[in-house]
């Protein structure tokens, strides 16, 4: 009982105004910030990959496989923050056994599995099958057997079979686009459907989430493409980079317009919550929302991309500007998730008070665990690239 007092008492100091006792402490902490951020990267990276297959954007071909592997690496990590947050990961499979159809959160398991099994793994399998067969014929040792196992010991690389693979990839991508929309739109839906919380409750939430997801996914692939090419000492293809930046720029314009629309709509509606929300924006969220999310994460990158389009910068400068802008976009989207998840819990449902969130460093929901979940996808991606090299020159003719 004394540890409870020691834990709660200091928080009481942080309260401003009128706040109900159950709102003093935040229940959705940094791991719940990480979760939509990672899911967004998955959806964004996949949608980028689909541009190549469905919309035939030839310039982006060098990033196709990289986008798919990035989506897979992040998708594997996506549910982990949730499992850590809830505790008892050993019981997680039970949501599949006894599905609760009236709970949007419980149904996410199926959305996730559908996306992992029926979309990502299947598409990667069909896309890599021919290469894996050829690699395994040339390879040796354990790697050869891993590759054989992944192909399920299939050997058929006749023209007919390859044609089928190609068609299968296209069909899966077409199914994959709505699935990716569902995956991340769902995350927005969870927040948007909490009607008691005016910061979250908005029909626009799923679509705002979706576009910010696309922005973050594209920016991540842009960063990864540049870093990996540099580390492999290969030439970065400028048409690819320019096209990627173009799509990122256009998506950012849509994302920015949607967010602005949501914001203007809130101000024009001026519901009873407007006062506390404006207090939140001008106070506790000022740095993370106005300075980082809006200025650093949106306006400066938008301005950078626009000026690259307007003026003819040399290739080296363009690479640098793209890199810095994409990095800023990542930071911006991360703070977007922070502002949604944490911001939504900082004010009281009485609309008359504010509380504070202080992240712990250790513990199951602290900074170190959060960092681990942000680094883990890159480690998985490293191994995926080792087993399934996404480079054109690794492929066999």
């Amino acid at each position, binding site marked *: 009982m*004394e540890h409870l*007092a020691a834990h709660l008492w200091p928080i009481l100091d942080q309260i401003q105004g009128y706040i109900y006792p159950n709102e003093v402490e935040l229940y959705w902490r940094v791991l719940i910030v990480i979760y939509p951020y990672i899911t967004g990267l998955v959806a964004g990276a996949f949608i980028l990959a689909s541009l190549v297959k469905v919309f035939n954007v030839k310039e982006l071909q060098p990033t196709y496989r990289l986008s798919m592997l990035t989506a897979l690496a992040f998708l594997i990590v996506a549910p982990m923050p949730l499992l850590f947050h809830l505790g008892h990961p050993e019981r997680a499979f039970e949501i599949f056994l006894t599905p609760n159809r009236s709970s949007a959160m419980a149904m996410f398991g199926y959305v996730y599995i559908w996306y992992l099994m029926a979309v990502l793994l299947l598409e990667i*399998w069909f896309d890599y099958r021919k290469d894996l067969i050829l690699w395994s014929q040339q390879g040796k040792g354990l790697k050869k057997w891993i590759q054989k196992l992944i192909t399920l*010991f299939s050997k058929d690389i006749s023209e007919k079979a390859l044609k089928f693979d190609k068609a299968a990839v296209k069909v899966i991508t077409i199914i994959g686009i709505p699935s990716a929309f569902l995956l991340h739109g769902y995350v927005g839906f969870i927040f948007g459907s909490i009607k008691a919380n005016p910061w979250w409750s908005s029909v626009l939430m799923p679509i705002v989430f979706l576009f910010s997801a696309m922005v973050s996914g594209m920016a991540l692939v842009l960063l990864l493409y540049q870093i990996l090419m540099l580390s492999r000492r290969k030439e970065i293809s400028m048409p690819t980079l320019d096209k990627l930046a173009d799509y990122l720029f256009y998506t950012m314009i849509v994302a920015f317009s949607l967010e602005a629309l949501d914001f203007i709509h809130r101000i024009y509606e001026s519901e009873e919550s407007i006062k506390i929300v404006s207090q939140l924006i001008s106070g506790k969220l000022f740095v993370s929302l106005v300075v980082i999310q809006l200025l650093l994460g949106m306006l400066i990158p938008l301005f950078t991309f626009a000026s690259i389009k307007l003026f003819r910068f040399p290739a080296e400068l363009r690479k640098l500007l793209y890199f810095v802008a994409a990095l800023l976009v990542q930071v911006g989207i991360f703070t977007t998730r922070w502002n949604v998840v944490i911001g939504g819990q900082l004010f009281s449902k009485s609309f*008359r008070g504010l509380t504070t969130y202080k992240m712990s460093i250790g513990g199951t929901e602290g900074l170190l665990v959060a960092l681990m979940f942000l680094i883990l996808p890159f480690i998985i991606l490293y191994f995926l690239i080792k087993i399934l090299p996404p480079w054109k020159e690794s492929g066999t003719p």
Partner: protein
Amino acid sequence: MKKILDIIPEQVKRLLIPVSILILSFILLRSFLIPPDFGKYGHYRASAVDEIAAKDIKYIGQEACEDCHDDVVAKKNMSYHRNVMCEVCHGPSAAHIEDPDGNKLSAPRERGYCPLCHEYIPARPTGFPQIVSESHNPMKACIACHDAHDPAPPEVPKECEACHAEIARTKAVSHHMEVSCTRCHETSEEHKVDPRNFRPSKPMTREFCGSCHAQKADASKELTRIDLATHGERYVCWQCHYPHLPESK
């Protein structure tokens, strides 16, 4: 049948093997793992109810304490803590009933526990005793002055603020900051020890506020003046103006 199998490409046939293993094992696992009584009453295992009911009881309730500590319980029941059950401070006591000497109970003796209820938070109801820990005898433990079983303050509170903290804080930043509480509320001494039965008065006439704010009132010139005859004549002033923060709208 053979014709159909021939149409299916080789890789799809291979793919169908792990897919069907996955689906079949899922179906099989479901039949093994879902308890037979799941869903009998709702989206849970029916026998869970019995299992929970069969768990050891940790809390025993105040009546059990009364059997031995009737004097303490009687004292508490006469005090402001009459609605606070013994186990709120002393913790779960079922084991203590079984073996009173083996399982001794304790209560928090440090500062910090009492403020969980009594620290000043604007959300707490006015009249509920609230303190600001930093300024309220900071180095002393609560129980040094207050008896938890009869927590009436050892000294009668000198200021209204001790209980009406939110009003006091609101008034302190208003134009009425100089006006003492007792100027408007006639308060008997008994109110300090028995607040609910001896309530302070409230101004019931327009003339009361008029004694400062009427056109001809004998008061400082800076005060807002109104014509009592024409200004909201059918209402008592505090029906429109909040006296603890009169400038609010």
